[in-house]
């Protein structure tokens, strides 16, 4: 009872904040009426901003109308510079999943190795410590130069930025598996492969998935910037293209869409985290 009433109250407050913000936004950008007398022909040339005191910033209703138009036709394709927001999103999500998947293929086995071998942990530590703080976009020129393909380069950038959290968390999770569980496996003469899959992996899974959740968040942050740089397709390119088109409504729309997709990706991994967690 208390639980639902708290949720309800929070919902009401959220909605109120949204309405107040929307209203303030609406008032803030609406015109203050005719500012000066001028020739109608001249006024047409000057535009609403100069004549009506209206802000160049679109209002919430404009943005809603834009979102509606995108929702009606998300996947249209009218040439390289005019694709539906759904197509652009699909490009970005595809790149993120590809780069992220490749990072998983590398980070999980390598993390296992580092976690199980104190020697490898020490030997690889300096490389990881130096590479980890590098902004993934700093890799872009090197990627473009070696790969010579902008789309694959952005996948590489996603790969490199997803790698570190997964690698570090996997190594940490594997190395901190409780000794007593390993001893159980040892007294039962469980072989190394079976031990890895039946004891170490389930024991380290919550830590590993936490790393994966951090990675997907970073990957989604980075893809927008990477696509702004390399251009062509993707939601990042879309934002930059609409900025060049001076379509602020589209820029705001994409911000909302980027946030929404990021939230969905995060929630998906939160679900995985719940599935692999175990109470002690």
């Amino acid at each position, binding site marked *: 009872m208390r639980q639902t009433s708290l949720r309800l109250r929070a919902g009401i407050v959220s909605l109120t904040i949204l309405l107040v913000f929307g209203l303030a936004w609406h008032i803030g950008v609406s015109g203050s009426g005719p500012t000066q007398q001028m020739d109608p022909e001249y006024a047409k040339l000057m535009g609403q901003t100069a004549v009506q005191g209206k802000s160049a910033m679109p209002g919430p209703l404009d943005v809603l109308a834009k979102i509606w138009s995108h929702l009606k036709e998300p996947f249209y394709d009218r040439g390289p510079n005019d694709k539906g927001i759904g197509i652009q999103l699909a490009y970005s999500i595809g790149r993120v999943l590809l780069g992220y998947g490749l990072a998983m293929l590398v980070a999980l086995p390598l993390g296992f190795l580092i976690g199980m071998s104190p020697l490898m942990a020490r030997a690889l530590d300096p490389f990881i410590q130096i590479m980890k703080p590098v902004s993934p976009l700093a890799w872009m020129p090197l990627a473009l130069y070696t790969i010579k393909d902008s789309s694959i380069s952005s996948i590489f950038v996603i790969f490199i930025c997803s790698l570190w959290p997964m690698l570090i968390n996997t190594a940490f999770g594997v190395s901190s598996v409780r000794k*007593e569980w390993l001893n*159980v496996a*040892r*007294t*039962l*003469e469980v072989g190394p492969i079976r031990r890895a899959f039946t004891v170490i992996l*389930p*024991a380290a899974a919550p830590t590993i998935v936490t790393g994966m959740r951090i990675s997907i968040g970073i990957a989604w942050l980075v893809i927008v910037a990477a696509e702004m740089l390399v251009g062509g397709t993707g939601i990042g390119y879309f934002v930059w293209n609409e900025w060049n088109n001076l379509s602020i409504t589209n820029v705001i729309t994409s911000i909302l869409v980027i946030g929404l997709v990021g939230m969905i990706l995060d929630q998906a991994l939160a679900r995985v985290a719940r599935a692999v967690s175990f*109470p*002690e």
Partner: protein
Amino acid sequence: MSAKFISIEGITRRFEAPDGGMTTVFEDIWFAIARGEFVCMIGHSGCGKTTVLNILSGLDLPDDGAAIVDGKAIEGPSLDRAVIFQSHALLPWRTVLGNVAYAISSRWPKWSRSQVEEQAKRFIEKVGLKGAETKKPAQLSGGMKQRVGIARALSIEPKILLMDEPFSALDALTRGTLQDEVRRICLETGQTVFMITHDVDEAIYLADKIVLMTNGPEAMVAEIVENPLPKERDRNQIHRHPAFYAIRNHLIDFLVSRSKTFKSEIPADYDRRKPPVVLPQNQPQPLPPSHEAGRKVA
């Protein structure tokens, strides 16, 4: 039946001390366990009891000497020797059934799923957990968790059962019930058991022989006490047995004083390879009781 099913022959274990030197936990320990015997080891913390058990389980290796089981030196863990851990060490992501089945499928990898489950259920029932098969360890009380640990160890039908203070984390009531059950099961199957405990009454109730360790470091086996109580014993009646207080006083006396002083007053005929075997008997005891209460039989 070999009188020396398990033979501990001159084992020594040293660890690196924090100051860089070596600490000898125990040195040149000899004792033997016959098939079907229930042996308890008693000593204060730091005497290396757990290390002895780890060497028997194969999780640790001695620096000198050897632990020999059935004519073969122990070189690593084996499914022939099951361990019941003090902390129960259940895999928390597996159910009760899953934990027991994990051990069984390690023991008999070729068994079918239904064979494994059948065996697991049989042993879960044996420790009185029928109906809790699908529960996760986190949903169980401490006593129930340890029951699962016992079921897991017994289900692989080991030649030797090793127990490291299995009941010390439990409340007194649960401890009593579990002792009864372990005793019943071990008697039924003629299980060879080596158990470490702090608890004198637990040792008297369960053990055939009790190995007394002096205080560490450089601990040694002071003597081996034979339990004068009959094999058939009843928890509620044993204190009426004429020899009960003889052995109890003897053990407590050892823990209180002799475990400290033994090393400084080693008897002239003491032989590390054959620690004296003592059978405490009911006889008029001087107050306070001293170690003369024990009569040497070896």
